[in-house]
């Protein structure tokens, strides 16, 4: 995959398949610590110890249409190639948390890609899930700005109007793009 956000999209689909009702995505770009971090936390069905141990093996998958799963192994390999790592913690019946780190300045680190567009796609296409998205950007000088997005108040306000209503799509897209870019360029 050419962008880290494509991995994010891929991994998050696992949380959806695990019947998560609440999914939280945290993205940290911290230039002062030379770190790019992503945390995906869900309250899905979780995994037992045996599945956990085998999860980064490319020949393990919960899918039925094919027997080979590549999502997590691919993401882990990408992170490890950039002095980073991928850690999974999971509890059966409670949920799963995936924490991925990359060395920000690593020459092999693929670009983050279209973060706002990826989050928008997830929110729209899985409207029955409660999404929280936290983004933070910290400059070389240590100035940190954060953007928090929670789709709960939006959905409560909208009631039965679908998120694919054109004006609402614009609202969501602009909120996400502006929220992220205002952290990177506060002025």
């Amino acid at each position, binding site marked *: 995959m050419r962008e880290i956000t494509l991995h994010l999209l891929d991994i998050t689909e696992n949380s959806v398949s695990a019947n998560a009702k609440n999914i939280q995505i945290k993205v940290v770009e911290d230039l002062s610590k030379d770190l790019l971090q992503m945390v995906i936390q869900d309250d899905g069905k979780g995994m037992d110890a045996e599945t956990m141990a085998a999860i980064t093996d490319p020949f393990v998958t919960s899918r039925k249409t094919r027997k080979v799963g590549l999502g997590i192994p691919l993401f882990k390999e990408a992170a490890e190639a950039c002095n980073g790592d991928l850690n999974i913690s999971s509890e059966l019946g409670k949920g799963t948390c995936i924490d991925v780190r990359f060395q920000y300045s690593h020459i092999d680190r693929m670009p983050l890609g279209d973060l706002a567009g990826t989050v928008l796609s997830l929110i729209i296409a899985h*409207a029955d899930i409660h999404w929280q998205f936290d983004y933070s950007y910290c400059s070389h000088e240590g100035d940190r700005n954060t953007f928090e997005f929670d789709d709960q108040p939006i959905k409560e306000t909208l009631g039965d109007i679908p998120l694919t209503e054109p004006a609402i799509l614009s609202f969501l897209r602009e909120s996400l793009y502006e929220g992220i870019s205002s952290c990177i360029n506060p002025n």
Partner: protein
Amino acid sequence: MPTIKSLDDLKRIREEALHKRQAKVDSGSIEIIVGMGTPGIAAGARETMKAILDFIEKESVNDVIVRQTGNIGLDSWEPIVQVMVGNNPRITYGRVKADVARRIMREHVLGGNPVKEFIIEQ
């Protein structure tokens, strides 16, 4: 800290949407599903999804539900898009890059004519 745009904006959008809904004749709902498993994403499904959402926004297409799903099981045909208009049978499209997605939106979703050369016969 920047906050999201105000919920008052959203309330206004809701009122307008409800008003529009009352005014128009019900044409039946449209559902679009994009396959977003690992092979789909690797083949460009996110750009396909983006093209669909952009089209809805720019052309003000109402009453469309867009969903994404995991692996559909037709890996060599990815990206895959399925379209259901009202009670018509579901149509499955293969190799739907962004430009094909825009054609499907214009010709099938808006125009009612499926884009034959990209349909997967099952």
